[in-house]
């Protein structure tokens, strides 16, 4: 009896907390977004600067995904398959973006590629602009989401071991064939999960982008940066309308994430 009361109270607290801290704010975003009517909403999200910001965010997320998926698979493969000196150090280094404030990451990029940076002469000679330009935005997004895929894959691949690959190799299969037929299917769900986390994180990236992009409207402004600008200019309805795009994408990602998690559990069981 007492147990049941405690259980009910704990569940209630959990539900209440989730509602107050997570669901209510999101609902309010949608409410404010539509407060001045559907017409205002659509004009806010089809306004050229908003569209440009959305496009830039999608572009940088897309590139980040490709780069970090390839890198993450490569890193996980190297770390789980080979024994070598400094493996622990490499594993720890990969995690750096997790423990550094994104603003600092942004500053680091300025220090390297900015006017005062040591890499500036090189990029200037090659006629590439990184800081205050699109490449900088993309690079910071890559940096910030660097560890997600490999972090997801490494423990999974360690648990699965190498024997299936060895068995295939003993029967004469070649490296890439083994990768395609054995390894890739094995890490499929973990990979997808890492990709989803990367997407979510890359789309929402704010701190580093704020520093590196220079916030040039229509050129280097990402969606989160654009939202904050609108907000600072007291264009509340527009800010919430654009926010609602990110919210919807997040909800989709959330659902995908749960589907993948569910499938992962099923395959293991």
């Amino acid at each position, binding site marked *: 009896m007492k147990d049941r009361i405690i259980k009910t109270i704990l569940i209630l607290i959990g539900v209440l907390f989730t509602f107050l801290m997570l669901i209510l704010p999101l609902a309010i975003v949608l409410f404010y977004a539509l407060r001045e009517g559907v017409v205002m909403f659509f004009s806010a999200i089809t306004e050229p600067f908003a569209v440009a910001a959305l496009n830039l965010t999608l572009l940088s997320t897309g590139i980040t995904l490709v780069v970090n998926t390839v890198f993450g698979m490569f890193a996980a493969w190297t770390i789980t398959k080979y024994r070598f000196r400094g493996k622990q150090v490499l594993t720890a280094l990969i995690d750096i973006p997790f423990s550094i404030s994104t603003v600092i990451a942004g500053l680091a990029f300025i220090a390297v590629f900015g006017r005062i940076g040591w890499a500036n002469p090189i990029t200037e000679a090659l006629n590439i602009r990184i800081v205050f330009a699109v490449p900088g935005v993309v690079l910071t997004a890559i940096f910030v989401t660097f560890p997600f895929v490999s972090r997801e894959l490494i423990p999974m691949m360690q648990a699965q071991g190498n*024997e299936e690959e*060895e068995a295939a190799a*003993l029967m004469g299969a070649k490296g890439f064939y083994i990768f395609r037929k*054995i390894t890739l299917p094995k890490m499929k769900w973990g990979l997808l999960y890492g990709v989803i986390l990367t997407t979510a994180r890359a789309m929402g990236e704010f701190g580093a982008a704020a520093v590196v992009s220079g916030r040039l409207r229509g050129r280097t402004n990402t969606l989160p940066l654009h939202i904050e600008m609108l907000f600072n200019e007291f264009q509340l309805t527009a800010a919430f309308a654009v926010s609602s795009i990110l919210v919807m994408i997040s909800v989709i990602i959330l659902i995908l994430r749960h589907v993948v998690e569910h499938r992962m559990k099923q395959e293991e069981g």
Partner: protein
Amino acid sequence: MYVELKNINKQFGDFQASRHVSFTIERGQLIGLLGPSGSGKTTILRMIAGLETPDSGDIFIDGVRVNDIPAAKRGIGFVFQSYALFRYMSVFDNIAFGLKVQKKEQAFIQARVTELIKLIGLEGMEKRRPHQLSGGQRQRVAFARALAPNPHLLLLDEPFAAIDAKVRKELRAWLRETITKVGITSIFVTHDQEEAVEVADEIIITHQGQIEQKGTPIDIYRNPKTPFAAKFVGESTEISAYHQLPGFEQVDGFDRAVIRPEFVRMTKVAKEIYPHASGRGVIEDIFFRGNALEVRVDLSGEKITAYQQLDDDAFEVGEEVSVLIHRLYLSNEQEVRMVENLAINHVGSVFI
């Protein structure tokens, strides 16, 4: 001589996993690699397969030195301890894998896989995934997968370890039969001596990375060449004060002895036959072992294990009995010697 290992050494970091390993195997034989956990059995198997490279020494298969031939080209079938079935492939695709790699014709693959599925008795389960099979069925699929490309040599790492006792017995007999039928030279690893004795033509005993002895099961059983082999094969009790046992005397250079249950006979005190050769012991424990009783008896301080047939005299815990030990293996660090109870012959010659 089909497989030959010559003075193989292998080190992992500063741990020596194989020391001076040398042995030969004849074509068509089924060999059991028997030894305690960590004695280097898997390491030997993996070096033969080419999954691990020896630090020194040579490996010959069918007269060819294979040290520099990659695993893929050695034509060896390998059954892993945990089977390592391809979890995202069906039973059929698992077995067909090696044939597809060899780019065999579709019709040939179909026929060969069907034949193997029949051999392992899994007809109708071709489409299942490994996780939808029982342990024994998985083991059979792993076996068929290794056999499919027609290897010259089959290596099996603890093929029955993950299977429960009853199925294991059936599977053992099945494997023995099937390997004989297919006629492939095979080496299997086990740490279960009963399994080795039952299945293998010859046994190789490993201990701390070394080969202790190689021979037929009965030979190793009757003539253990090393103290470890004497202790490891068969149930055994090691004692040090063997000269205090009735009928045995101290032999120079041997400081301990191994007693096997088969060397011990217990009778009611009233029915004692060889008084000079026997001692008095007290029954400490009796275990029912299905087809016999295992009896722990205390013989002036030494705990000795013996078997008692079910239709023999029944004993009770605490009862004093006559214990006759008619044979011992004496040993030291290096060698083993078998000695008989002196008092039995002695008594016989005097009174009869």
